[in-house]
């Protein structure tokens, strides 16, 4: 079982202006879960794209089963038994699950697609690996967790022997993570190789046999998972000692910033997406929302910011804003860090200074008397980049050229720039490296201490425990429990997230 399935030797990949991979080497054996860790921007995604044939290396060698290979397209990589579960889902929203899974390797019968055979095969695989899915559902109607299952099925369907998982747990709750890890152990037992990219070092140590650490496009270490601690790995990744979270020294104010009274958002079918949700957030308080993806968190944010029509009353700084437009709500001082930064927070093809204006296009310093102040905006974008440590050449850089962590830091900086009295933060550190995560946490803490009210939604329970003053659990659109993070365990939260109390 020690045979090498994949070996990368001294991979170099340059892009105009950036060297993504300076010197990356990696060895993954058969029947092994091999983790690849590193900060965002360290070159993990790039090297995996090279292995998967999406990009060609400028130098270096790839060996699969001891044979040197050169993939020009993903098709060739797939044929060689390599499959990739992407970090950003690569799915056609207007297609069914089945169409997405079979695309590119469609079973045919007399020239037409044999949907019956495909459906049977998908259901069989879904049952075997515990990936519950309806093959005929439209992908646009699926939640994040389900979409990931489609991605995994896509790879399994192609009979891959080497599976690359790019941040697979970022969107999953603990129970789903356990299921995924059980599936990974099954794959390993059958002699397949899994390359597992993650930021969550405790998960890496739980699931991986060996770990390769990247820093600034270079392999800095390959270690056995049972010989290191999470702290060791983090230091290898960052190259310095990590800051630890200090306990809170300030207390929330008495003044209520946001008060929700009986908020209900209707659904398509019989059940409400959000049902009779009431709670308050005080100045300087962080209210955390825990819950399995798709239990009303998204609707909650939409209702508060004004995107979803809802019943009930929303009182903000003493004013009933239930009937206010989104623009009026934002202008009265609500900041928003949306769930999906690439779809909801940024124009990926536009420069950072243009992104700086989004959501702030009516007020200073972006606009004065209805005219955009481009010079001021560019200068301000540069200030945000400096203060929030956004690593990019300059305000003219398009958003897509930044790594996820840097994009997120920029968004946080943008939302903080107006000093909102309420920040709605949905998964603010999802898919972000340890360094950026620490930076974002630090900014949120500073703002909180200065009196900002924060609604924090996260799938990362440890983040919620560390940041929140109070945690509320959402289940099927209702608040199913309220917890004090000081006196709660992760297991208690996990139960409240999945089991409806009578």
């Amino acid at each position: 079982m020690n045979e090498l399935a994949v070996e990368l030797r001294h991979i170099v990949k340059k892009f105009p202006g950036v060297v993504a991979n300076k010197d990356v080497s990696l060895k993954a054996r058969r029947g092994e879960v091999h983790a690849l860790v590193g900060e965002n921007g360290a070159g993990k995604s790039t090297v995996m794209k090279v292995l998967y044939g999406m990009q060609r290396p400028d130098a270096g060698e790839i060996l699969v089963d001891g044979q040197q290979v050169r993939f020009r397209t993903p098709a060739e990589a797939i044929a060689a038994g390599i499959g990739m579960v992407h970090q950003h889902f690569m799915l056609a929203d207007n297609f069914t699950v089945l169409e997405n899974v079979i695309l590119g390797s469609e079973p045919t019968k007399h020239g037409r697609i044999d949907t019956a055979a495909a459906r049977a095969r998908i259901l069989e695989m879904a049952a075997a690996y515990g990936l519950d899915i309806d093959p005929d559902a439209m992908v646009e109607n699926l939640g994040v967790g389900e979409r990931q299952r489609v991605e995994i099925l896509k790879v399994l369907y192609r009979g891959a022997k080497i599976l690359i998982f790019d941040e697979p747990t970022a969107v999953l709750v603990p129970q789903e993570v356990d299921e995924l890890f059980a599936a990974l152990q099954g794959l390993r037992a059958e002699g397949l190789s899994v390359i597992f990219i993650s930021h969550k070092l405790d998960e890496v140590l739980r699931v991986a046999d060996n770990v390769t650490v990247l820093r600034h496009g270079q392999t800095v270490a390959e270690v056995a998972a049972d010989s290191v601690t999470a702290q060791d790995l983090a230091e290898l990744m960052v190259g310095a000692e990590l800051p630890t979270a200090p306990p809170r020294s300030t207390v929330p104010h008495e003044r209520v910033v946001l008060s929700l009274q009986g908020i209900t958002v209707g659904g398509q079918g019989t059940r409400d997406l959000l049902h009779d949700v009431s709670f308050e957030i005080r100045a300087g308080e962080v209210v955390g929302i825990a819950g399995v993806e798709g239990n009303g968190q998204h609707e909650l944010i939409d209702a508060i910011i004004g995107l979803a029509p809802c019943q009930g009353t929303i009182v903000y700084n003493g004013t009933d804003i239930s009937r206010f437009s989104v623009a009026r709500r934002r202008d009265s001082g609500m900041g928003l860090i949306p769930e999906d930064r690439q779809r909801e927070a940024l124009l990926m093809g536009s420069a950072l200074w243009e992104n700086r204006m989004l959501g702030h296009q009516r007020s200073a310093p972006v606009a004065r008397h209805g005219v955009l102040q481009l010079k001021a905006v560019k200068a301000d974008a540069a200030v945000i980049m400096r203060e929030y440590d956004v690593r990019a050449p300059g305000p003219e850089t398009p958003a897509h050229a930044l790594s996820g962590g840097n994009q997120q830091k920029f968004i946080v900086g943008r939302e903080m720039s107006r000093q909102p009295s309420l920040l709605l933060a949905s998964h603010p550190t999802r898919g972000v490296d340890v360094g950026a995560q620490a930076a974002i946490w630090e900014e949120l803490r500073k703002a909180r201490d200065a009196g900002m009210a924060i609604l924090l939604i996260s799938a990362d329970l440890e983040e919620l425990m560390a940041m929140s003053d109070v945690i509320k659990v959402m289940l099927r659109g209702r608040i199913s429990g309220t917890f004090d993070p000081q006196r709660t365990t992760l297991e208690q939260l996990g139960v409240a997230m999945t089991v409806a109390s009578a």
Partner: protein
Amino acid sequence: MKSRSMRWSAYGILGVLVFSLVRAITGSSDLTSVGTFNAALLLAIPIALAGLGGLFSERAGVVNIGLEGMMVMGTWAAGFWGYQRGPWMGIVMAVIFGTIAAAVHAVATISFGVDHVVSGVAINLIAPGIVRYLSVIVYQDSNIPGAGPTQSPSVQSIGSNGLPFLSGGHVLGWQSPDLLGSIGAKGWFFISDISRILRGLTGDVSYVTMLCLLLFPLSWYLLWRTKFGLRLRSAGEAPVAAESLGVNVYRVKYIGVLISGALAGLAGGFLAIVASSNYQEGQTGGRGFIGLAAMLFGNWRPGGLLMGSALFGFSDALQLRASDAVHSALLVIAIGFAVYAVAQWRQGRRVGGAVTLALGLGVFALFTYVKELPGPFVTMTPYVTTLVVLSLATQRLRMPAKDGVPYRKGGDS
């Protein structure tokens, strides 16, 4: 499925009933005459073909506003080779010329990432210039009768046929009886009307028309039931995902655009050889754009765009044949509005129903008080009806997600 097709048949019969009724009341026989429906078919085909061309291109993610120009190329090629080598060769060359124009569009948009609309508009501007230039070269100083810088000599026509026994088709030179035709001539209410309509659609139909009609179910099958179709549609929905699964997105897009041009060229060839008998400058008359509109309203589906084209073809035929029939058609429209208003009301859309009813009453008033429509209004009927009906057919339009978005291989999503 069964109940659905039965429901559609019921709608069809109801529609014919309304037409017969209005025909009987107003006495304008052209409303259900054989000639009208025969002409409607002839007028609908080029639009539907252009629309189908647009469908192939846009499903692959390339906006093809250059359909009009590709059709122009088709009309000219059909005229030139049709005269030289016979009508079938004309059709073939029309397809090839359309494809050549599409190749330009494909290279510009897919390989060079030019904005799809810019490239399409360029083709629309250049194509008429090219064909004028070619006409001057080959026809100007020739002594061919009828040939000139703006038109080709006339082309022999392609044979036609109908359903044997029902519509007087001929089999191996034997002329079969014309059952529908003779019933149609009887003047029985409804029965004769429906016979005339069917006779118009199934009798004296050009072989080219038959081939063209076959292309629609064929395209549907190709796009929604085969591997190739799934891949083509994936290029329009999620090209990055498709590429990551080993689909050659560039190739699929090229094929989509080339098929698009071939169909637009065929539409042009049809105009020159079947709907007319030679190439004339300006023959396309914006039909490429109307085809594009039909595709849009048909929700990027062959069935939908065929219905849109049929509607346009029918109103066009009506206005060409008899202006009094257009006036009578107002009554049909008024009844149509009334029925639609009731349907809306019953679905609980009170406001929509009221608006539709008011529109219906307005059209009825027009029918009652204006005895003869002024000429320009008659001419614009097809455009107005198509617009009104299609925009009323409230459906959720869903264009391919990445339609018109330049795609770069290996780029970020």
